[in-house]
C-alpha cells in the first residue's frame, strides 16, 4: 500500500520545528508547510531516527514461552525501536547459518522492526571452539555482530582469534565481560549490601579484568571490540583509557544500570536479579556521566524476558534478566534531557545512530533528511506515565512497574509504516 503523509510541526533533535514528508518507505522532504494526502499534527512531539537496540533477547527459537520474534518486535515498536539485534542464546543456539537465517526470516514475517540476528562466537556458547562466523556473515542474515552474551568468551586465545577472524568481514565481537571463576554462584553486586543479605557477590573486578584484557587484545590485533552492558565505574575508566589510547572499543549501558541500584535486592524480589547485577549509586553516576561524555557509545536494553515461574521463587533459584524495550526511551530522557545535562542530539546518537554504526546497519540510524529511510519515532517528552505490568512482551518481568517515568512514544514509523500510532500497536506488521 503506497503511503504519503506529512508529520506536521515536529521538533527535530536540533530544536528546529519542521514538517517531514514520507513517501512509501523514504523521507522525501523536510521543511516547512509541506502537504500530502494525510497530514498528522505532531506539535509538541520530538522526532528522532527510529531506535536501534543492539542487545535484545527475542528467545525464539526455543524459549517461546518467554518471547517470540513477533512479540519481542511488537514490544520494540512500542518502545520506539525500528531495529533490534537478537542475541544468540536461543535453543538451538544461533551458531550456524541456518539458525540466524531462521531468526531473520521470522523478523521479516513479523514486520514490526528490522531483526538482525547476532551470531554466537563459539559453538553452543561453550567458549571452546569458534562457531562458523564466516558462514553466518555470508548467509542471507548477513551477520556482523557476534556474541556469546550470557556467557563470557573467557579463554584469551579464543577471544583473540575471534577478534582477528571477524576482520575478514568487518564484524565485531560483543563481549559479555564476566570472569567466570570470580563469579561462581554469584547473585548480586559484591559490596556492603551483599554482605548484609548473605547473597553471593558478583565483584566489579570480574567485569573490569575482562574488559582490561580485551581492550588490550583488541589493540594488539587491531580489531574492533564492543563491550556489552558496562556496569561499573571501573569499567568506565578502563574504556575511557582505551579510547584515549586509540583502541577501537565501543561500549553500551543498559537502562536499568542507569537507574537502579543494588539496594533493590533487599526486597529479595528477583525481578531485580540481572546479570551483570545492579550496582551502587556511585556506579550509576559514573555510567550516566560516561554516557553523556561519549565514553559509553550507546544504550542497549538487554531486554530479557522470562516466564513468571522463573521469577516467582526464591532469589537464588530465579533467572537473571529484566524487560527493557518499552521503558528505555523514558530512562534515556531522564538521564540525558530531564537532567539538563545533555540533549536530543545525544539521545539520537545513543539510541539510534551509534548502535546502527557499530553494527553496520546501513539502513538504520540515518539522519531525518530527504532520501533517508523513514524510520522515525515521535516522542511526547512532557507526559509522565506510571509503568504498568501489561506490555506487548509475553513476559512481565519489568522492574519499573509502578514507577513514574517521563516521556511517551506516540508514533513509531518503520520504513514508512506506522507500527505504533497514538501509542497503540498496529494490528499487523509491515508486509
Amino acid at each position, binding site marked *: 500500500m503506497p503511503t504519503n503523509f506529512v508529520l506536521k510541526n515536529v521538533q527535530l533533535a536540533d530544536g528546529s520545528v519542521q514538517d517531514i514528508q514520507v513517501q512509501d518507505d523514504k523521507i522525501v522532504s523536510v521543511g516547512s508547510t509541506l502537504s500530502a494526502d494525510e497530514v498528522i499534527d505532531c506539535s509538541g512531539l520530538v522526532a528522532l531516527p527510529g531506535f536501534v537496540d543492539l542487545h535484545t533477547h527475542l528467545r525464539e527459537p526455543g524459549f517461546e514461552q518467554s518471547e517470540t520474534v513477533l512479540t519481542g518486535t511488537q514490544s520494540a515498536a512500542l518502545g520506539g525501536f525500528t531495529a533490534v539485534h537478537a542475541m544468540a542464546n536461543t535453543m538451538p543456539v544461533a551458531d550456524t547459518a541456518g539458525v540466524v537465517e531462521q531468526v531473520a526470516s521470522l523478523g521479516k514475517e513479523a514486520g514490526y522492526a528490522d531483526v538482525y540476528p547476532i551470531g554466537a562466537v563459539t559453538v553452543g556458547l561453550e567458549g571452546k571452539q569458534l562457531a562458523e562466523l564466516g558462514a553466518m556473515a555470508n548467509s542471507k542474515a548477513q551477520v556482523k555482530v557476534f556474541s556469546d552474551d550470557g556467557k563470557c568468551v573467557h579463554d584469551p586465545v579464543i577471544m583473540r582469534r575471534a577478534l582477528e577472524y571477524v576482520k575478514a568481514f568487518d564484524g565485531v565481537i560483543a563481549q559479555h565481560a564476566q570472569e567466570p571463576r570470580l563469579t561462581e554462584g554469584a547473585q548480586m553486586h*559484591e559490596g*556492603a*549490601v*551483599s*554482605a548484609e543479605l*548473605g547473597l553471593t557477590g558478583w565483584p566489579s573486578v570480574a567485569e573490569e579484568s575482562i574488559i582490561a584484557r580485551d581492550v588490550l587484545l583488541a589493540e594488539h590485533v587491531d580489531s574492533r571490540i564492543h563491550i556489552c552492558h558496562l556496569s561499573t565505574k571501573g569499567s568506565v575508566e578502563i574504556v575511557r583509557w582505551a579510547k584515549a589510547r586509540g583502541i577501537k572499543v565501543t561500549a553500551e549501558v543498559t537502562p536499568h544500570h542507569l537507574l537502579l541500584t543494588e539496594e533493590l535486592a533487599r526486597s*529479595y524480589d528477583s525481578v531485580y536479579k540481572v546479570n551483570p547485577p545492579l550496582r551502587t549509586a556511585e556506579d550509576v553516576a559514573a555510567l550516566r556521566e560516561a554516557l553523556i561524555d561519549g565514553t559509553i557509545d550507546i544504550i542497549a536494553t538487554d531486554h530479557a524476558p522470562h516466564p513468571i515461574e522463573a521469577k516467582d*521463587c*526464591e532469589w537464588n533459584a530465579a533467572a537473571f534478566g529484566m524487560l527493557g524495550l518499552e521503558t528505555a526511551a523514558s530512562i534515556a530522557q531522564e538521564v540525558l534531557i530531564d537532567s539538563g545535562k545533555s540533549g536530543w542530539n545525544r539521545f539520537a546518537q545513543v539510541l539510534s545512530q551509534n548502535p546502527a554504526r557499530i553494527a553496520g546497519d546501513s539502513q538504520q540510524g540515518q539522519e531525518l533528511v530527504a532520501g533517508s529511510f523513514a524510520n522515525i519515532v515521535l516522542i511526547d517528552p512532557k507526559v509522565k506515565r506510571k509503568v504498568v505490568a501489561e506490555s506487548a512482551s509475553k513476559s512481565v518481568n519489568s522492574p519499573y512497574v509502578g514507577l513514574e517515568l517521563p516521556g511517551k512514544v506516540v508514533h513509531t514509523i518503520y520504513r514508512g509504516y506506522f507500527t505504533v500510532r497514538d501509542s497503540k500497536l498496529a494490528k499487523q506488521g509491515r508486509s
Partner: protein
Amino acid sequence: MKNLLSAADLTRDAAIEILDIAEEMAGVNHRDIKKLPTLRGKTVVNLFFEDSTRTRISFELAEKRLSADVINFTAKGSSVSKGESLKDTAQTLEAMGADAVVIRHSASGAAYKLAHSGWINGSIINAGDGTHEHPTQALLDAFTMRKRIHGDASVGKGLDGVKVAIVGDILHSRVARSNLILLNTLGAQVHFVAPPTLLPANPSRWNAKLHYSLDNAIDSEDLDVVMMLRIQTERMNASYFPSEREYSRIWGFNAQRLGRLKNSAIVMHPGPMNRGLEIDAISADSPQSTVLEQVTNGVSVRMAVLYALLSGERNTNAN
C-alpha cells in the same frame, strides 16, 4: 509481631521480652510435666529444605511443649532441581491451614520471600536462610550469655558492654549475621575474627570490629564471650585457607587460648562442632564452654518465639 525473619525485626524491648518469656519457659522445662497448653489447636509446620536435625528437633520439642500440632515437612532440593517449587509447597501448607511455618532453606531470603509473597498467611519463622540469618540462634546465644553473666537476675536485662568475639567463617555464616544485629541491639560490642578470605569484601556497614588475628583479639580486647563458628567442609577445598592444620593453628580455639581468657569468659559454639579443627576437646568440654546449655536454651527460646508470635493475647506471663 507476626513473623520472625531477621534479628533486625526485634527492637531492644521486643528482644528482651522474648528472652524474658524464655526464662519462664526454662522453668517449664525443669518441671516433671514439661508441657503448656498455649498452642493447643494450632498447627505448626517445620518446613526444612536443608538437613538440620538439631534445629528441627529443637523447634519440634518447643512446639510440642506448647501443645501445638506439629508437621515435619522435609523437602529436599528446591525449584532449582526437579522438586516442587517453594511457591507450590507454601500454597499447599496454606491450603492445609498451617498457623505457622518454621522454614530452613539454602537460599538467602527464602523466609523473607515466603512472608512477602502472598502465598501463605500464617506466621513465618526463619530457621536459617542460606548465608543470611538465623535469628532464633542469635536469641538463644543472647539468652545463654545473659544467663551466664546475670544468672537469676537476668530478667529485663540486655547485654550492655559485653564484648563478644565471633570467630571463623563470618562470610558464609547466618549465625554471625543474626548475632551481629541482635548483639548490637542489646548493647554488646561485636568483634569478628577471621582470615580475610572469610570476611565479606565490603563490611563497611557492619557495626563490628574486625580482627585477622585471634591471638591479638584475645590479648587486646578483654573478651567476655568467644563464639567459634563451624568450618563447613566445602570451604576446605576452595582456597579460603591453605589447610585445616594452618586454620586450626591460627584461628582454632584451644586450651592454651582458653587459658588467656579471664575466668568469667565463656566459650560458645552453635554446633555441630568439628573437634580438633575450630575448637579442641579441652575447651569444648571445659566449664567455660556453654555448648550444651545453648542446646537446652534453644528449646526455651524457641518456645518463647512461638508463644510471642502465635498466642492470641500477648502476655509476658507464660503461666
